[in-house]
């Protein structure tokens, strides 16, 4: 048996004899198990609830009686953001973004009813998920079990006897690292088993799951390397512990909170009131539908009349009010898109600034990676918002076209007692409207989102291993 393996075995035996250590390992295993089970059942409850609510909303939409198409534009459609299976592992921003959105004409609504506004203050303490356990708690356990691995031997002078006994410095350090690495593997195992179970469900792609597994393996390996490195460098066990605790507090607790704070301050985001007022202002500039003499709409009218070769809107073969609705929606939606794009761009710049903090804290890198691969980061939410807006526009325009084609201009402008009946179109049209079907991202796209985080973590690990290698060469030389 090589010296490395002997040393690793000894270290593990020592840990097994430490009652506190064993209890801690058992606790974290139980904690992970609880996290996997609760997060999974929570995700399934949410996913089912949203599916049920979406089905109810769609059924209600299609069960509408004969109506004027413009009524249906205002009746609108509720869209629910489906929750991917991997959200059971890392729910990311799901609780912070609304899960439902009301799609209607002339307006772009916010996604509402996010858990963070419906929950107690505890939501802000974090969520108990496998990702949380691996990101925040597991490194602490490794610190706790490993800070003394080498420095203990240095302090007691047993290192000298090890070296005299024929073990090379590298073998000692590798042995200690191996032992701690095995602990890390043990600690990561239940979460990874949970991930495998979650991944076993239908619709989960292998690539992002592999990215998540690789990410956490790198992350835990990095902590193993860091703990052993500090243990090699420290003169006293206590110093090693304090340094490692400080590193944990800074990288896991402090930087992940401070970085978004600074990003938010550096890159401002327009609020809804300012956005809405801005849209209204631009709209008045582009074309004021309330002003009969507005040049944009006058030009549209002239264009439309010319296209059909008639002199009055009453003579058009289609309903002019429907055409006007199509044109109006086109103009407002273009503005919405412009403002939304500006908002998204600002948020993406903010997120990029936070991601850069991954250079300071591997915890930031793993968070970003994990959320990106699980499809629960901002990009994942944006995917929903983009598709919801595309759906809203398509639905509204289809209804406006219906008004143009199926309701006559004379009926549409009539106000006699029977006019209301004549303005309505048959209910079967509602079942012919498109249904909202969220197209989930494909595996390669999700995995691509994890690449920056993976490279950061790989860089961190390489640096830590290199530092460990240098430190090892000087071990015991004092």
């Amino acid at each position, binding site marked *: 048996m090589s010296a490395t393996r002997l040393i690793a075995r000894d270290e593990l035996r020592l840990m097994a004899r430490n009652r*506190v250590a064993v209890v801690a390992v058992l606790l974290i295993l139980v*904690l992970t198990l609880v996290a996997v089970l609760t997060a999974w059942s*929570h995700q399934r409850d949410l996913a089912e*609830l949203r599916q049920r*609510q979406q089905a109810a909303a769609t059924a209600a939409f299609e069960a509408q009686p004969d109506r*004027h198409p413009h*009524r249906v534009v*205002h009746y609108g459609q509720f869209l629910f953001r489906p929750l991917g299976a991997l959200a059971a592992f890392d729910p990311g*921003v799901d609780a*912070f*973004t609304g899960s439902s959105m*009301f799609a209607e004409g002339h307006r772009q*609504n916010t996604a*509402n*009813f996010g858990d*963070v*506004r*419906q929950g*107690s*203050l*505890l*939501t*802000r*303490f974090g*969520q*108990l998920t496998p990702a949380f356990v691996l990101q925040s*708690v597991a490194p*602490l356990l490794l610190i*706790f079990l490993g800070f*003394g691995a080498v420095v203990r031997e240095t302090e007691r002078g047993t290192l000298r006897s090890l070296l005299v006994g024929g073990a090379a410095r590298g073998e000692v350090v590798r042995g200690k690292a191996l032992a701690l690495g095995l602990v890390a593997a043990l600690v990561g195992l239940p979460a990874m088993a949970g991930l495998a179970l979650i991944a076993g469900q239908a619709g989960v792609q292998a690539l992002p799951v592999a990215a998540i597994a690789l990410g956490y393996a790198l992350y835990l390996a990095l902590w193993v390397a860091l703990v052993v490195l500090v243990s090699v460098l420290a003169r006293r066990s*206590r110093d090693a*512990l*304090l340094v490692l*605790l400080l590193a944990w507090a800074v990288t896991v*607790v*402090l930087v*992940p*909170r*401070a970085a*978004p*704070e600074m*990003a*938010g*301050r550096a890159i401002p*985001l327009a*609020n*809804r*009131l300012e*956005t809405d007022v801005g849209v209204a*202002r631009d709209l008045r500039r582009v074309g*004021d539908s*309330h002003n009969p003499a507005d040049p944009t709409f006058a030009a549209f009218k002239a264009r439309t009349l010319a296209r059909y070769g008639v002199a009055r809107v009453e003579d058009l073969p289609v309903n002019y009010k429907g055409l006007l609705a199509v044109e109006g929606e086109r103009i407002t939606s273009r503005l919405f898109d412009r403002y939304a794009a500006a908002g998204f761009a600002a*948020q993406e710049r*903010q*997120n990029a600034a*936070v991601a850069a903090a991954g250079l300071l804290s591997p915890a930031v890198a793993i*968070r970003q990676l994990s*959320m990106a691969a699980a499809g629960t980061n*901002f990009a994942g939410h944006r995917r929903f918002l983009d598709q919801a807006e595309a759906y809203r526009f398509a639905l509204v325009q289809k209804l406006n076209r219906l008004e143009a084609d199926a309701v006559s201009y004379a009926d549409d402008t009539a*106000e006699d007692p029977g006019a209301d009946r004549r303005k309505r179109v048959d209910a079967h049209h509602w079942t012919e409207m498109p249904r909202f079907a969220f197209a989930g991202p494909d595996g390669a796209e999700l995995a691509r989102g994890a690449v920056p985080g993976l490279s950061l973590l790989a860089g961190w690990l390489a640096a830590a291993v290199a530092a460990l290698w240098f430190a090892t060469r000087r071990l015991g030389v004092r």
Partner: protein
Amino acid sequence: MRVWMLELRLLLRARPTVVAVLLLTLLSAAAVTGGMAEVSHQRAAIARIASAQAEDVGAIAKWVNEKKDPGSAAYYTFHATWDAPSPLAFAALGMRDVAPFIQRVRALGLEAQIYDGDNFNPELALPGRFDWSFVLVFLMPLFVIVLFHDLSSGEREAGRARTLAAVPGGIAPVLRRRTALRLGAILLAAVLPFAVGAALSGAQPLPVSAAIGLAAAYALFWVGAAALVSRLRWSSTANAATLAAAWLVLVLVLVLVVPTFANVAIARAVPVAQGAEIALAQREQVNRAWDIPREETMRRFYAGHPRLADSAPLPTGFHYKWYFAFHQVGDEGVAGRVAAYRAGLERRGAAADALGLVLPSVGVQAALTRLARTDLEAQLAFQDRVRAYHRRLRDFYYGYLFYDRPFGTADFARAPRFGGIADD
């Protein structure tokens, strides 16, 4: 007194201690500065409302004034409401980053408007704010570890414990003095920046002293926990390191794990799925009005608003009073669900508060957000004020709509303004 000075000098000579205290001061100051910047940002946003609204409403008034139709005015005009940060909001930003503090409403159905959010970046909100309450609840316990983990075991290890025990009075007074000094140093580091911030923000002395008292009690709790752990002496192999490590788990469990776990438990125990259901039900109620006789809607409306019942009968064509009536009837139709949803949210908040009674970390966070008026309760109170204001808005427009009074430019200025006692 001389012994105290001596102990103080000893404390100042211990470099790790001084560094730790300075670091805590720095973190606390940074959190207070950040919190104040955020609050002033929010105040500035609220201050900008007036000009934005003047522009927006002015443009509507311009075209409405031509026909003087009160319905168009009521339909198109958004009115701003806002929830100004309290003077202590900088210390615990609570839900102010995820719940809107500016909201615009129209006299239309409120249930379709009141749950709207503001723009915020969810990825920035996810990790939680870096405010003073965070420094206090999450970071201060770690500093207590650093300063207290070797209070008695350090002496034991250095071999001075026996000598100290032999002096008159024994080791206890020495440890008491050291405990007091270190606790004082930590508290001063954590609280001083807060006190400065509170003074600059013009906070009332009572909530400020309550917050300081909370901080002291919380610090005492952790010092007490440290004393308890060191009492155990943790067999002969225990040294400062394992001691610190062992009770770090305590910090972690109490500050990170139990609250997250409780969150899941509360969410399960008190389900609130009604939010989206309110929106769906309200839409059904509102849109149904187009498919039933208009008189039926008016009957239901007048039953709730007998004062307006002397309004003229509906004309054959469209009339906005019917439109607003069915919006109101739609809101009233979901009142039961709204109350149930609200009760669910309050039960969740109460459950978290109850947990705060046994879990100091949660308790302190809850108490601070309460003092700062940034908690769920404050958010619900803001919603109540928006509701009250919305009632006034409706009453205002109904006065024109139901009696066909023309609505001109001057009338836009007569619309009720948010704020003041009327909305509380």
